[in-house]
């Protein structure tokens, strides 16, 4: 298996919501950003591949291993960081290190204490004295200290300040410097994903709307603001979605390079992930 994460036809039914036949692949060494509205199914997807909830699927392979039969082996090599701390507030970082060394065979105590120092976390203070940011940093320290090959972040940076979020991005960049390290990051903060993701998957109302590389988004997609005349001149094949505004059209296009060649002096704005999300969910689509 050349994929760090391979999901085929994963479905999870709830009473009033269904995660519907999701298939996606994350190649080794890449960072996949999972985006979607609140309640779109991002966390359900993550919980499903971790077997925290039971879902139906044809295949789920993590790091080349089958989730159904090798769950324990998989979990030795992955680390998950959620958006709030799940360690008891009376525990200390030092104790958490001891606890995790009895859980992970590959636990690296030295690495852990190095991270604690790097993040300025007091070893012997109880977690109840920690700020939210400190708790998240502790989760990262713990996550990175057993040599995981796949990091899964479920909205882990919500509620953190930009300075700290940049620190986290830097850690993730360092983490993926190694070819066999991959990251799945689910986030609302699309500006972070703009900076760091290699691929973007958009989950909308339980379905995977698209999976694109950031390259495709940056190089092939763009936003054109124009009048009616120009808008009519555009071919439907170039348009992903558009918004009719009071005084103009705002068009999300997908053949940026060829459009630039055809219309030399139009200004094509860069499209961010947030733009993509807004256009896909709120724009008119031309079929």
């Amino acid at each position, binding site marked *: 298996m050349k994929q760090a994460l391979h999901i085929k036809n994963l479905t999870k039914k709830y009473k009033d919501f269904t995660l519907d036949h999701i298939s996606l692949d994350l190649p080794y060494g890449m960072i996949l950003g999972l985006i979607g509205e609140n309640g779109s199914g991002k966390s359900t997807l993550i919980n499903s591949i971790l077997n925290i909830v039971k879902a139906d699927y044809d295949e789920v392979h993590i790091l080349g291993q089958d989730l159904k039969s090798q769950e324990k082996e998989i979990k030795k090599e992955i680390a998950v960081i959620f958006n709030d701390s799940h360690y008891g507030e009376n525990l200390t970082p030092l104790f958490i290190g001891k606890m995790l060394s009895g859980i992970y065979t590959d636990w690296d105590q030295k690495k852990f204490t190095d991270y604690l120092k790097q993040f300025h976390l007091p070893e012997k203070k109880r977690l109840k004295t920690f700020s939210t940011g400190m708790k998240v940093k502790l989760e990262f320290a713990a996550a990175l200290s057993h040599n995981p090959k796949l990091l899964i972040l479920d909205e882990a940076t919500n509620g953190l300040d930009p300075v700290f979020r940049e620190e986290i991005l830097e850690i993730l*960049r360092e983490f993926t410097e190694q070819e066999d390290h991959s990251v799945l990051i689910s986030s609302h903060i699309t500006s972070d994903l703009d900076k760091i993701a290699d691929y973007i998957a958009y989950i909308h109302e339980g379905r995977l709307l698209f999976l694109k590389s950031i*390259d495709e988004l940056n190089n092939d997609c763009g936003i054109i603001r124009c009048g009616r005349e120009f808008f009519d001149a555009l071919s439907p094949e170039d348009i992903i979605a558009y918004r009719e505004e009071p005084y103009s059209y705002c068009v999300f296009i997908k053949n940026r390079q060829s459009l630039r060649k055809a219309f030399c002096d139009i200004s094509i704005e860069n499209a961010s992930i947030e733009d993509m999300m807004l256009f896909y969910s709120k724009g008119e689509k031309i079929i």
Partner: protein
Amino acid sequence: MEIILSSTSGRPIYEQITLQIKEMIMKGDLAPGQALPSMRKLAKDLHVSVITTQRAYDDLQKEGFIVTVPAKGTFVSTENQDFIREENLRRIEQLLTDAAFLAKENGLSINEIKQTLEIVYTEV
């Protein structure tokens, strides 16, 4: 080695990287055989996706500017001379094409352009 990326330039990022590395090689800022950062390290340091640096390195390798030695890394190609020349010739042709277009648009004759070229060539 300096690479400066612009989000406002019309060029895709991978093209900006490719061009700037090519320039450094042709100017001699990057010597033949010199080691380049791995595409992952470059991605990390430039804060771009590894897909972007991979594409840039792939293009550079295709055009013969760099070589990747398995398990050793990426290096500036030592067979640069011909490629530099070819690249420069290509650039000259492109520039001349642009000049010709502009001249035709403005109604200049071919003799007028030749004159201008002669003046400029001797002055440079």
